């Protein structure tokens, strides 16, 4: 039975695609800075060379990282305001009882149940478009990870405001580690997110949803 729900209005789709593109730029430029001067097939072959497959020179990386980061921050603000105005934010509230049990149920389905042909434990509805695992991971990514990433990024824009020493450790070092670690975890999240999007009725179904706005299937 075909079940079509209009779950993703234009503003969410626009935010989502922009967020995804910017994240790819930020990963490429971030890695270019982090591994500047190193060599390898993925990396520029020498100092400030642009010969890498995915990465670029340090100078270009700094420039594009900054530009993409400013747009990403504005886009994040747009997402937060949009969630508040439209009520989309309610999908990110974890308040239901038995969350741990539900997380287990969803995890078990991905790891075992789906291979056995079991029914999806939390079918998508207009009132609840995310399953418990999605909900928790999205909350962590969007309401914990992104603010941490953006704030530590802003601090790197204006390093003169970073506290010099925190417990006798360089404030710059702590800030940078927070930024790089959060960026890495969110990059892992993105990889897993893209893969789980192939778990729809067909591998392409959920990708289509983010283009048309209509959710199909379970």
């Amino acid at each position: 039975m075909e079940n079509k729900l209009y779950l993703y209005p234009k503003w969410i789709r626009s935010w989502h695609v922009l967020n995804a593109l910017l994240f790819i730029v930020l990963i490429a430029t971030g890695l270019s800075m982090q591994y500047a001067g190193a060599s390898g097939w993925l990396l520029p072959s020498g100092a400030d060379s642009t010969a890498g497959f995915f990465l670029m020179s340090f100078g270009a990386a700094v420039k594009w990282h900054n530009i993409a980061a400013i747009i990403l921050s504005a886009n994040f603000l747009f997402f937060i305001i949009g969630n508040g105005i439209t009520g989309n934010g309610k999908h990110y509230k974890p308040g239901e009882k038995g969350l741990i049990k539900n997380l287990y149920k969803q995890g078990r389905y991905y790891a075992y149940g789906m291979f056995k042909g079991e029914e999806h434990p939390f079918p998508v509805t207009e009132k609840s478009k995310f399953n418990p695992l999605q909900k928790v991971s999205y909350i962590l990514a969007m309401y914990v990870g992104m603010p941490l990433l953006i704030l530590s990024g802003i601090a790197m824009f204006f390093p003169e405001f970073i506290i010099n020493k925190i417990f006798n450790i360089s404030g710059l070092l702590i800030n940078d580690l927070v930024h790089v670690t959060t960026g890495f975890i969110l990059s892992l999240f993105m990889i897993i997110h893209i893969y789980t999007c192939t778990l729809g009725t067909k591998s392409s179904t959920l990708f289509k949803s983010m283009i048309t706005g209509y959710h199909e299937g379970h």
Partner: protein
Amino acid sequence: MKEKYRRICLVIIFIITSFSVFANLPPGFPTTAVILPDTLADKFPYYTDNEVCFTCHSSARYDYQNVETGKHLRRLMPNDKILSREIYYSSVHQNFSCTDCHSSEFEKFPHPAELIFEEHPTCIDCHGGDESYAQYHFEEIEIEYRQSVHYGHEGDGFSCWKCHDPHGYVPTVRRSDDFSEIVMFANDMCLACHTNFDRYQLLTDHQELDIIQTHEWLPNQALHFNKVRCIECHTRINDTILVAHQLLPKSEAVQRCVECHSQNSILMATLYKFKSREQRKTGFFNGIIINESYVIGANRNEYLNILSFVLLAGTFFAIAIHLLFRVILLNKSKHGK
């Protein structure tokens, strides 16, 4: 009672020390009164002798008597002739007599006019060929200096003293563990001329350079200026001497970010050169830098690096396994039903 006794002693000491200074002065020599800190007089062998000079050369004005008219006069001391006792007696030359480097003719007042042409000795004149200074490689410094853009442009018009004040020089790199102090001390030498048009004009006919504008390409300019020395980018690295002295032309200055922002950061061969052997922060590439700063690209953490590769590989592995099961089951269901 004790306080009264202490004050009397101080007055006696003051009178005796003042007398010992002024007793050496020739007629007409300036006699601006100065209170000698007796601890310094005990500590430095030429303190009392040097007071003959410091009496005038430590303040903005000096008093003297015209021996012909008998008038007492007061004059302003030119700024570049004013010295600080505190700075001089904290410097490397603190145990020197003024006349070790300057002509003893300066002991006459008024100073003989021809002394204006006095040639000052440079570092190599005293430190060259001296075994006790061999470890500092003054000869190598001299060679580097003669190849530097300063010497190239100005030749004999330039000397060590244009950057290193002989009356206040402190080898900060060797003595200090505070990198902010090292950076500030070094950059002050450059900025003394490169941000002061009056001094700059002494050496060149060029138009004044706007340092902020010429470094506009540099992101986080203020942070760079506070954390690294000008010479990190503007000298050629030298393995022998502690501080490179071959100032490069502007066109050859380091402009590629990765020279510092990489695992092979040149900062390890410049600013952190010798300290790097003394202190390490385990786990970080170029860890010594982390004691003072954080350089993107140069300070990756080795363990986080490994952990990130493991997590990334683990994620792809888990996805691959999941995908494999999906493909197997898809095939089964196709063939089974």
